[in-house]
């Protein structure tokens, strides 16, 4: 069993510490939002989770293209890692979003573009996993996986667009002027600090998890190789 590289060990601890600090910032530093009160605090981690989900989604599509160009298995391992992480974090984002939506909008679920797109993405990931499960030959599995992430990567923005053409009630947080949508609010400076700190923390967690998952993929490959050697 090979040891984790030193940087990874440091990052493990660092991400745990940062997560603790982020939690403290959310609960003790960030001011209470006037209209919604405590429930608004979930938003810091909710957005950060969705952000990590997006990172994984983009990473998977890029890894898919890279695999098709090079036929190098390392891209397949990266793609699989990114998909799995994205799957989990989008799920957390959906659940935290629902917890927030109930007091804010009076319902656990709305067919809002972001929420729905996230749900569709989860379905695409599940389909992706089922596709991989149905194919024995690892090389073909990698190829089909890459093609499917590519198709998914192109269709998801269009899905978002299509649902957005319906009227949206999701609060737009940054940039757009439509924060008049129910539940929107302006962020004060301490809120912004907490927000971006959480975002950074979760990005780091994403990198650490990705690294671990890739290591796991490599180790699994090695085990497979050893098995083959024994059999031959």
């Amino acid at each position, binding site marked *: 069993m090979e040891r984790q590289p030193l940087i990874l060990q440091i990052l493990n601890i660092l991400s745990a510490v940062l997560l603790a600090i982020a939690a403290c910032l959310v609960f003790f530093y960030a001011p209470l939002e006037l209209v919604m009160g405590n429930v608004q605090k979930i938003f810091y981690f909710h957005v950060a989770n969705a952000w990590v989900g997006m990172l994984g989604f983009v990473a998977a599509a890029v890894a898919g293209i890279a695999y098709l160009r090079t036929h190098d*298995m390392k891209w397949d391992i990266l793609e699989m890692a990114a998909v799995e992480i994205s799957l989990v974090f989008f799920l957390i984002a959906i659940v935290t979003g629902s917890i927030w939506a109930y007091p804010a909008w009076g319902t656990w679920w709305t067919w809002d573009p972001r929420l729905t797109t996230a749900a569709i993405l989860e379905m695409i990931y599940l389909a992706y996993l089922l596709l991989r499960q149905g194919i024995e*030959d*690892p*090389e073909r599995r990698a190829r089909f996986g890459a093609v499917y992430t590519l198709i998914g990567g192109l269709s998801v923005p269009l899905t978002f667009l299509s649902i957005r053409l319906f009227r949206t009630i999701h609060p737009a947080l940054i940039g757009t002027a439509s924060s008049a949508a129910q539940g929107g609010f302006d962020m004060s400076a301490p809120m912004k600090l907490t927000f971006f700190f959480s975002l950074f923390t979760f990005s780091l967690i994403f990198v650490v998890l990705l690294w671990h998952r890739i290591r796991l993929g490599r180790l699994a*490959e090695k085990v*497979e*190789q050893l098995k*083959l050697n024994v059999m031959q």
Partner: protein
Amino acid sequence: MIEVKKLVKRFGLKTVLSGLDFQVEEGEFVALLGPNGAGKTTFLRILASLARPSMGEIRIAGYRLPAQAAAVRRRLGVVSHMPLLYGDLTAEENLIFFGQMYAVPRLAPRIDEVLELVGLTARRRDLLRTFSRGMQQRLAIGRAVLHDPEVMLFDEPHTGLDQDACDMLDKILRDVAARGRTVVMTSHDLARVEDLASRFDVLSRGVIAASVRRSDIRRNGLLAFYRQSLEEA
């Protein structure tokens, strides 16, 4: 005609072909022998441009694979243990379709010729679905020679055929080979290939382990040669 150098094929981590060298001169009829799982079919699929080599060099009729695959395919006729034909088309329609895919010139007279060759002229208007296994296989050979290829690849063409059908098939195979075509055929039926091929190569552990000309072995000596080369490998 066929030149293969240091061919490697991996499926994921599993290496099926490990640095295989193989050469066939024009007009040779090579039988590729080997136990199940030795990589015969994989090798043939690579030659047929259906699978990509992981490493190595392949030249067929002077064209490189996979870079010049289209040029190679034009000169290649392939028969596998599957007929590669459509059940809901008649024998003639199947040939018309594949003739169009290969852009065969003067297709109609060529189809008459081919049907005559494989002895299916009388059944040309019948659906392939209604054909026996042996007849399907004969039409598959017809499909493979339709565009008059220089090189022919046969992957276990006798699979699932009864004695009569096998004999009929052998007659056609000889016919096909007699026209100066280069033939590579995989098989595990030694008795059947013994007086068909002009050379026997044994594929084992991902390489050609041994090779012998028919003129160099005594009659019925193929089995002994085959056993010996597998033991040495």
